[in-house]
């Protein structure tokens, strides 16, 4: 029962943060290079520009939800299990979403890296 409760919390973290990541990436590509914007117009302009982007705000809502789900999960299990388990699954979920929704070129190098990171993160949970 406690295990099921913990994995449900981890599942909520994974789905919310993957969707959040993809939306965030989409929003930031539309806004453009933050370093460049900051050096030209200053930090305030960066904050205004980012905070007024609707996609960013939806992404932020997803990430805030996943943050509180993570806090809850962390109170139920070890940091060295909860953090890697949610990361590993988020990693796979986000890579798939990035390929199909953001049309990123996930080439062989990136799939091998994704595999290594996933297995590595799964080993962390041993």
């Amino acid at each position: 029962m406690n295990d099921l409760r913990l994995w449900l919390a981890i599942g909520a973290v994974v789905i919310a943060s993957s969707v959040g990541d993809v939306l965030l990436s989409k929003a930031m590509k539309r806004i453009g290079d933050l370093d460049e914007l900051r050096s030209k117009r200053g930090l305030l302009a960066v904050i205004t520009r980012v905070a007024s982007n609707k996609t960013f705000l939806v992404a932020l809502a997803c990430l805030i939800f996943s943050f509180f789900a993570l806090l809850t999960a962390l109170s139920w299990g070890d940091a060295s299990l909860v953090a890697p388990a949610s990361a590993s699954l988020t990693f796979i979920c986000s890579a798939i979403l990035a390929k199909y929704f953001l049309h990123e070129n996930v080439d062989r190098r990136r799939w091998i890296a994704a595999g290594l990171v996933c297995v590595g993160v799964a080993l962390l949970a041993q």
Partner: protein
Amino acid sequence: MKLKKVLIYAAIACCNGTGDVMLKRGMQDLGPIALSNWTHVFSAVMNPWVMLGILFLGGFFYAYLTALSWADLTFVLPATAFGYVVTALLSAYFLHETVSLWRWAGVLMITCGVGLVSGGPSLTEPRRSDSLTGAEDPA
């Protein structure tokens, strides 16, 4: 450009890992949260460790946004995974959780994955068909 990649990777990994461990340290003070009293989770933000964790995660978020503004999500993600290597190291030395040989093997694999992806291109080149049909393309 190369230095920019390295710095942003380091900032993402360090802030993410340290932030998570600070959060866990804070949640240890609070104890387990009961489902019947789940709003208790919001009082966690008053704990100094959780505050420090949020501060670190704020730094992580800024670095992450900056990276996403000029790099692919699948390029930036391994950097966030590298944060869990930092989490494992800090969990062992700071929270005194046991880190087995398997976990160290995991740390090694994540490090290899990050090394591999960071050596490649950071952004997907627009495909030819996209640029031909793309309305936003000035050419």
